[in-house]
């Protein structure tokens, strides 16, 4: 889970611990390798190495290091203390092991570093008092002078390390802030560029819609009006009337298709609710031409988006279906509904009529077109007929729905 996942909150912390242990482990093993030949005890180093390996496994298997690290720290303290105790207390050369431990703690985890600074100083004070208590029995005392000097020197070295640690932290924090500021600056620049581009696109879309309004729409209306004039003048000429009607039909179809296309370009057409409103407006307009009671039932839908191509296809599907209801269902009431599930939206067109079994090819093609379009766009289509009415259902996946 954590592997390679730099965005995980614990990633950088565990990565630092891991690399400190991986570097520290061979160095820790260097000591027993050398000390063995000069006849010094090596068990402590080996125990320490085993504990470090345990910590490594804990990180690998559980992504956790605090408990094994703390145990390692305590055991290390105990081992080092036992060496110091037997080798001259505050004058012991093994005191340098405590400094080494502090360095390793700082490298592994800054929090452990601060703990180690204080525990080391406390340990030095403890050893100092033990030295004073055993002073008469330590012959070295006379040669090396006051145990206070040794205590002060060791404490100063520890404070020196602490200073380094504080600097390290401050430096890292400064870098982190600088990086964050840079990131934010880049994000702002990018954000502005995206906004500007979106505005440009929107202006372009609006210009397209205005053009349609002023030019294309008027031109189509002009064709329609001229065809109507032609129809008036032709009277009931059986040969020419169908041609005029075809001109009107084609111009109307182009007008309607352009409207859908422009809506698709101009609005949040990938929002299922926006699409529902558009189709509701269409249904209302369409059924107002007939004596059909049309209404819409909308369920609240959490914010989500459909595939960008879904809307235009759903428009074609439901326009076809709404037309079929008038042509073939002999219904007096139609309802258009939208339901929302966690990962999909369902559009339903219900009527109180019954869709006729296809008699002519046109009807057959209509329903076939709907099915084909659903299949192509991976919508789930279903249709159910009862004596009370017919229901046409289309399920659309919305994988990015908000929880």
């Amino acid at each position, binding site marked *: 889970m954590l592997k390679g996942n730099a965005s995980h909150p614990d990633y950088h912390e565990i990565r630092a611990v891991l690399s400190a242990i991986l570097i520290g482990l061979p160095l820790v093993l260097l000591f027993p390798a050398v000390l063995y030949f000069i006849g010094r005890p090596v068990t402590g180093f080996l125990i320490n190495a085993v504990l470090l390996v345990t910590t490594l496994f804990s990180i690998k298997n559980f992504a956790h290091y605090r408990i094994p690290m703390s145990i390692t720290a305590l055991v290390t303290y105990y081992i080092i203390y036992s060496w110091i105790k037997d080798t001259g207390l505050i004058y012991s050369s093994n005191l340098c092991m405590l400094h080494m431990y502090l360095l390793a703690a700082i490298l592994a985890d800054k929090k452990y570093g601060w703990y180690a600074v204080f525990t080391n100083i406390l340990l030095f004070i403890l050893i100092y008092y033990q030295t004073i208590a055993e002073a008469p029995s330590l012959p070295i005392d006379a040669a090396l002078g006051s145990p206070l000097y040794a205590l002060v020197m060791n404490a100063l070295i520890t404070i020196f390390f602490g200073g380094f640690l504080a600097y390290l932290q401050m430096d890292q924090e400064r870098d982190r802030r600088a990086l964050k500021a840079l990131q934010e600056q880049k994000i702002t620049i990018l954000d502005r560029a995206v906004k500007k581009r979106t505005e440009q696109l929107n202006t372009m879309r609006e210009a397209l819609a205005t053009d349609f309004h002023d030019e294309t729409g008027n031109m189509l209306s002009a064709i329609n009006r001229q065809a109507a004039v032609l129809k008036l003048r032709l009277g009931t000429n059986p040969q020419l009337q169908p041609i005029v009607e075809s001109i009107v039909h084609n111009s109307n179809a182009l007008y309607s298709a352009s409207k859908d296309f422009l809506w698709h370009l101009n609005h949040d057409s990938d929002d299922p609710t926006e699409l529902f409103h558009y189709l509701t407006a269409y249904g209302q307009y369409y059924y107002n031409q007939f004596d059909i009671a049309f209404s*819409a039932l909308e369920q609240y839908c959490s914010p989500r988006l459909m595939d960008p191509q879904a809307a235009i296809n759903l428009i074609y599907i439901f326009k076809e279906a709404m037309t079929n209801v008038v042509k073939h269902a002999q219904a007096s009431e139609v309802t258009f509904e939208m339901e929302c599930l966690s990962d999909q939206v369902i559009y339903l067109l219900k009527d109180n009529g019954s869709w006729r079994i296809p008699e002519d090819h046109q009807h057959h093609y209509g329903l076939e077109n709907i099915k084909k379009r659903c299949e192509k766009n991976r919508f789930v289509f279903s249709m159910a007929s009862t004596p009370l009415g017919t229901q046409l259902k289309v399920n659309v996946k919305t994988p990015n729905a908000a929880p």
Partner: protein
Amino acid sequence: MPPHNMHKPKRITIIEDNPVIREGFAELICASPAYQLAAQYSNCEHALKNLETDQPDLVLMDIALPGMDGIKGTSLLKKRRPHCIVLIITVLEDSSKVFQSLCAGAGGYIIKNSDSTDILKNIAEAFAGGAPMSLNIAKMVVQSFNRSPNSPLSAREQEVLQGIASGKSYSKIALDLFISKETVRSHIKNIYQKLAVNSKSDAIKVADANKWL
């Protein structure tokens, strides 16, 4: 209406700058015995100048016109001839421009692309006291009335308006409210009239207090 006026054809003026569309409408009106073409203009200025001579009962008004636009034209025409019906002729029925024209006093709209029968039906409905309303126009009307705390609409008008704004067809509203489709349309006409009055008082209030919009 006095009996001798019963069969007098209604006078219609057309204001549209596209000559093909204008003549298309003109020919349709000329062919209908119920109507008489009073005049046709390519701009508002000329139409307003000849208003007294033309004496139209109904004006078919385009919105985008050279010079004065149809919204301003509607407003001036209604001031001088309040009983004249203005029907907006438009490419898209639910644009904000259509809504603005309705606020200026237009009594309805006709889609330029409609069939001849539908156009004549719309004109006849307007004379009979009815008007159409699309879902998006209904939404804009709702918003407009919501701005003032005391709605001038009657309870029935509210129900009709809400019905249209929720996507119901006229038949569905008629069915739900136990009224006829014609009554639904006459409610819409009254809503438009109140909208125009409301918009005017809105404009005055805006000028006075400058607290809206």
